[in-house]
């Protein structure tokens, strides 16, 4: 077979697909998108079901492949969303979420637009990566909804530019998980190491 893919992206929508695509593109890894959204957006349940199907297939051991699911936290709490997936895997007797075994769940808080706004601010500030450098841009607030431009209590936020999700993914791929730059959204910082572990596993 001329072209075979060993990383499958299960995204909630286009932005998630582009984010993961940018990351893998930057790391020089071929990927395949399992398109699951029906309109502009998918939802948590659809992504979760598909991800579990992929894990079931992975568990059959017919082929080595890794699967990355990307779902917005959407104010539900990252731990709750992760636990929902983890408990379902456990209930079905499937392998647990483990990035070092090719099963990665990426949960942008509050949504992927948070990371896109961070990307725009970080780029405008000159992409500082040194820990010694003071943060030269305002930090994003994970409680805010940068998709609808609202604060957590429903107040309107001023619109600002968002970096294209593909470019955000490329930027994330350049960050050092062991020494992340200042000003990263916590959920993004938390995913750097698992994502690196995932790629290490896929390349082994």
């Amino acid at each position, binding site marked *: 077979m001329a072209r075979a*893919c060993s990383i499958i992206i299960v995204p909630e929508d286009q932005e998630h697909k582009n984010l993961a695509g940018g990351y893998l593109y930057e790391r020089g890894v071929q990927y395949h998108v399992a398109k699951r959204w029906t309109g502009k957006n998918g939802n948590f349940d659809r992504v979760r079901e598909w991800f579990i199907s992929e894990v079931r297939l992975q568990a059959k051991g017919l082929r080595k492949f890794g699967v990355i699911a990307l779902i917005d936290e959407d104010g539900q709490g990252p731990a709750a969303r992760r636990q929902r997936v983890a408990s379902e895997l456990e209930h079905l007797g499937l392998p647990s979420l483990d990035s070092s075994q090719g099963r990665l769940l990426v949960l942008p808080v509050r949504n992927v637009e948070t990371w896109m706004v961070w990307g725009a601010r970080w780029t405008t500030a000159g992409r500082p990566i040194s820990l010694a450098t003071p943060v030269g841009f305002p930090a994003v607030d994970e409680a805010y909804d940068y998709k609808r431009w609202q604060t957590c209590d429903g107040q309107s936020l001023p619109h600002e530019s968002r970096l294209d999700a593909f470019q955000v993914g490329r930027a994330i791929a350049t960050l050092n998980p062991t020494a992340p730059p200042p000003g990263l959204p916590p959920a993004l910082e938390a995913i750097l190491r698992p994502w690196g572990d995932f790629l290490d596993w896929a390349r082994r």
Partner: protein
Amino acid sequence: MLTRFYADNFKCLQNFTLELDAFTLLTGPNGSGKTTVLDAVRRVADLLTQRATIETLFQTSTLTRWDKRSEQIFEFDVRLPETGSGPERLDGGLYRYRLRLSHDRLKEKNRVVEEELTFEGRRLYRGWLDDTERQSTDAPTFRAQLFNDRGREGPLVLMDWFYSGIGRIQPRVENRLLQRFRRFFEQLVILGINPDSVSAETRREDAMVNFSGDNFAGWLFHLLSSEALACREAEHSLVDGMMPELALFQLESEGTLRIAKAIFKAKGEEIRLRLDELSAGQRAMIILEHALAVAKAWGGAIIIDEPANFLALSEIQPLLHRIRNAAAQGQMQAVITSHHPMSFDLFAEESGRWLERTALGATRCERVSALAEQLSDTEIPLSELVARGWVQVARGSTTPTTQTVAGG
């Protein structure tokens, strides 16, 4: 119905067997040999129906590149139902056809060395290259033993080794079984439509449409007199589907020239467009609809290379379902090749054959159903695995499967 096809030493087909159902989907990666299968069937059909000789159909370049042998073998099993009644009645049963060709690689010459047709185990025809008189005449002769429908020997005759003897036997009351076999191949429609090559004009009738559909106007000229009802059915299908404003599809005369035209009517206006003025998708659909209607009228078989090509997404599923349903109802046999994920998800599990080969290897073919079984407890459609490049026939395995490939 064509139930089995075998080819040996033809391009990438080496000791290759394909078993066929009423509806069969051939699928597999690029270069796996799908179109070569169609090509081989088409060439043997052309030989059997006297459309060409083996000199043009089976040039030495058609031998498998890495195979040193100089013989090619083709076999068909064709099961046809009982037809007619009274003295016109013909039994249903299984035909077995075998054709053996030899090539002189240096002189790039070829000839038939053996041709045989049986029906339910009894011979209807046997032709062979006879070397016994070589010493006196300095050349072998091609002899053919004819048999009647009951399998009793008839005359022994001389034949030309550049032709199929079966194709050259005159129709007689005592060889109606052989005629029926030949008619099956005369009515076998094999298409790989290239809309750009389709001409709107013709000066003559063509009894069969060419593989690319380029002579469709000539075929239509023939069909309008011989299969008018089928043409009408094709027109209705076009109106029901892709071309709701089509009023008529016809041949218009300009002197000795006939021009295929579609006449559209909308809001009191009438527009006449030549076949070659229509879009590629419309041209493809017009040819497909006529081919399907005619294949059903004949109760024969149709083989189509990539029927979904050129068609809008909304046209594909209705077309595929109509092909499959007509085959399931016994109106015709259909064999299609397709890369389209829709055809794969709809039909591969029940009717799919996965073809595959390596660059310097022969084509291998397995049923897709075993693969579907592996995925039965997941939501992942078969086409997803194909799109990921995960489906391949394991070496030494009898089933297509997803193979472990190390690394990223």
